[in-house]
């Protein structure tokens, strides 16, 4: 728990001062805070419950981006080696596949990731796998922070989810810094309600 203590100490030193009538400054501060909340949720799932983080989702996005950039760099190199009229067929192929990759990336972030920022896997002694997914969104001009926790059973693929909709004021103190305990409490509440639901079934 040492790194966390250091983290919170760092936060105490930095008091965020903003003019509350300056809309964009407030928004930036809240965005920063939400980012911190995400980080803490992530840490909470990993450290408190000892779950293993799964990076497949992020790796998928990195792969798509990597292919797109590689295609563009290849087009640049090919055009340099074989000046324009010669390189036309290769350029047509590269440009087309680049924009297809961009389309795939948009679909991936909108329909597969959907704001999921943490995926963790819980392994039971009986080889049962449970996958936890945490996602969040904060609408523009709104202070309601939506945190969703999803539980997917590794074998039956059953999924249950629970979410909380609370003002960001619940997680941030007067100085504008995130209170990890509050976030942890919220995550534990969601976490336990999902687990209890399972037992009653």
């Amino acid at each position, binding site marked *: 728990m040492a790194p966390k203590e250091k983290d919170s100490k760092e936060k105490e030193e930095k008091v965020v001062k903003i003019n509350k009538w300056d809309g964009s400054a407030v928004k930036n501060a809240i965005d920063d805070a939400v980012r911190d909340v995400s980080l803490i949720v992530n840490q909470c799932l990993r450290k408190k419950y000892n779950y293993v983080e799964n990076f497949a989702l992020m790796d998928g996005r990195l792969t798509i981006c990597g292919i797109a*950039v590689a295609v*563009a760099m290849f087009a*640049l190199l090919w055009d340099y080696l074989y000046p324009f009229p010669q390189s*036309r067929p290769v*350029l047509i192929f*590269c*440009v087309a596949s680049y924009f297809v990759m*961009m389309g795939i990336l948009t679909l991936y972030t909108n329909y597969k990731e959907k704001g999921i920022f943490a995926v963790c896997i819980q392994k039971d002694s009986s080889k049962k796998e449970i996958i936890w997914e945490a996602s969040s969104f904060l609408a523009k001009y709104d202070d309601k922070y939506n945190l969703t926790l999803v539980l997917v059973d590794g074998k039956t693929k059953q999924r249950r989810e629970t979410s909380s909709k609370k003002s960001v004021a619940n997680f941030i103190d007067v100085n504008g810094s995130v209170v990890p305990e509050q976030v942890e409490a919220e995550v534990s509440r969601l976490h336990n309600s999902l687990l209890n639901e399972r037992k009653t079934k």
Partner: protein
Amino acid sequence: MDVATLFDDVKRMNKRQFLYQVLSFGMIVSSALMIWKGLMVVTGSESPIVVVLSGSMEPAFHRGDLLFLTNYPEEPVRVGEIVVFKVDGRDIPIVHRVLKLHEKKNGTVKFLTKGDNNSVDDRGLYAPGQLWLTKSDVVGRARGFLPYVGMVTILMNEYPKFKYAVLACLGLYVLVHRE
């Protein structure tokens, strides 16, 4: 925002986030590059957009006008058209009007150009010993223009330090800022 907090963001990132940051910077660059190459394919010109750098075509084009070019091989060059051409030994393409043109039965052409605002034709601008231009010298033919937009490019070319400063700031901003 001071520099220390700026780099704080970077420090908080893990390996994957940093890689994503680099890749998203790469994607901004590649998007611009791919749009440019796409335009090249569509227009058939190796440089589909050029900036007029001199006043030699006034009053048709002024310094800082942005020109859109096409270069389809099936369209013949005609007298009176404005062509953009490259001359051996000069880096910057020239935008001038076709003055005289000779066409052979086998399809090859040779032509002479002149700037509307110049008092003599372009033979003095061509490579030593060159009297005519051919199709292979042509970068494209002007199809449309947008006034004044190219002034930024001219400024950047005349003050290279300004250009590098702008590029460095943009690059740093994209690399350091998350999302």
